[in-house]
């Protein structure tokens, strides 16, 4: 029972690790790392779903009747591409945040934001910020 679901246990553990990192860490890069681990666990989940006991690769061959299911592989290939795009965008945003705030720590960014907000309340009428 435990070993039969080995892949699923790996998936769940990785998923929890990923989510925990996203929630617990203030560093923007670490958050992205966590997010990537989280997504990767889903990739593993799909790939292990496709496994058929005793099946070979889904290529037409003589003397073979049992194939692994190719569809989840194709699906997850798409999801991997989406994951890469997300990571690239997140990293690009982090670069821009670093330029604008000179920090990639959530705490420091929040602090600067509240400061900016309280300055706005005292208001310079011609302030360009909104």
């Amino acid at each position, binding site marked *: 029972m435990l070993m039969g679901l080995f892949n699923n246990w790996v998936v769940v553990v990785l998923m929890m690790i990923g989510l925990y990192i*996203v929630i617990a860490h203030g560093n923007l890069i670490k958050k992205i790392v966590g997010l990537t681990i989280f997504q990767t666990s889903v990739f593993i989940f799909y790939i292990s779903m496709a496994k058929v006991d005793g099946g070979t690769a889904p290529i037409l061959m003589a003397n073979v009747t049992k194939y692994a299911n190719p569809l989840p592989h194709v*699906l997850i290939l798409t999801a991997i591409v*989406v994951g890469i*795009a997300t990571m690239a965008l*997140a990293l690009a*945003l982090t670069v821009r*945040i670093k330029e604008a705030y000179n920090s990639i720590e959530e705490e420091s960014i929040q602090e600067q934001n509240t400061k900016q907000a309280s300055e*706005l309340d005292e208001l310079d*009428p011609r302030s360009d910020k909104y």
Partner: protein
Amino acid sequence: MLAHLPILQVIVPLIGAPVCVLLSRASLVWLFALVVSGLSFIISALLLQQVLMSGTIIYELGGWDAPWGIEYRIDRLNALLLLIISAISTLVLLAAQTSINKEIPAEKHTQFYILYLLSLTGMLGVVVTGDAFNVFVFLEISSLSSYALIALGRDRRALWAAYQYLILGTIGATFILIGIGLMYQMTGTLNMADLAARLPEVAQTKTVLTAFAFVITGVCLKLALFPLHLWLPNAYTYAPSIVTAFFAATATKVAFYLLIRFTYSVFGVSFSFTALPLQFLFMTLGLLGIFVASIAAIYQTNVKQIFAYSSIAQIGYMVIGFSISSVTGLTAALLHIFNHALMKGALFLALGAVVYRIGSVQISQFQGIGQQMPFTMAAILVAGLSLIGMPLTVGFVSKWYLLSALIEKGWWPAALLILIASLLTLVYVWRIVEVAYFKPPLSTHSTVNEAPLAFLIPIWLLVIANIYFGIDTRLSVEVAHSASESLLQAQGLVIP
């Protein structure tokens, strides 16, 4: 040509986006994007007409039969959503050129239109497809481009808002992906109609229950349902005005469509509303969301933020209508999707006009603009009244249906709470009206005058739609009613 409308709906903006790169001048790109968006509006209007005439349209991609190939399936619900999205997108684009000249650096204009069209593609794709995995892919197309669009805002907080939205949005989308995987594992199919046929056999298993929980949670994150709304206020506030107007009117509606599609069509009403205490859960979260967000809105000093919180409250109304799970309730929810798109589109576009002239949407900067920008401010006033639910505006129609649905079920307390919440809406709308009409103009704003026509035309088209659909409710109510009826009919819950 007419037979290929479902695929054209997605293909036109998808091809349109890269073509933008080839056009050299920014004004040309704008014109092109407007034409593309206008085309998809015409397509969706034709689709709605076809659906109303001859029922559900099924389009098989590449000629492969449904469970193996991918199919696009358009019924009344999809057609209504398509119309809303493409109409709002076109109207918003009308004002886009003027607005982004002021808010986005010139060298980024082409990129803006590319991202905008991609985002439109994604939203239309989510609605049009009948394949669960396609939903995920299109959702990510629209989300990825929307993160980038939000980051274009000129305040640095836009970057931070985009980052937060990215993290939460990706978690939401991945949850949906897990849910879809679990469903596939149990049924071996990704086609929504096929899933709906096969899920009841395995409905008792824990796997299906888990799949359901994952999908619902993921969709609710995208939907910004209280308490999963944390990304929304900042994203709406710091994004460029045009982007806010576009997303406030469409993005959450697409997520709400998914919620309806998955609970009512894929899992089926009898499973959805019995497996988990969904009715109680959504009713409570909806009501809580309305109150918490409305009260938060009252305390904001940034007008864009006020209406961003108000959007979360309005999502509460939709979710309540959804949770009643009767024809009237669902009709109210669908009507409110349609009406809220009209109100928030008008409001955020008008705020875009204010930013264009004044350069700020702090409430203190609104002093006296009732006299300086009478048409813009009047638009905010009418759309605000609509938000409150004044008779003769669309807001009244959807609230009326919501209340009658609640009373039909005998849930008086909820109906009362909704009426009280309307007063909270009155408070934050009144704050803006008071400042704008009853205070003298600021000396620094002596040169401010009415917004350019490029703004006023789309704003007032939306405002007039707000009033028109508030008086002549035939089209909107008929479509919403027949859509919800057919959704419940498919479950055998309504005798035709």
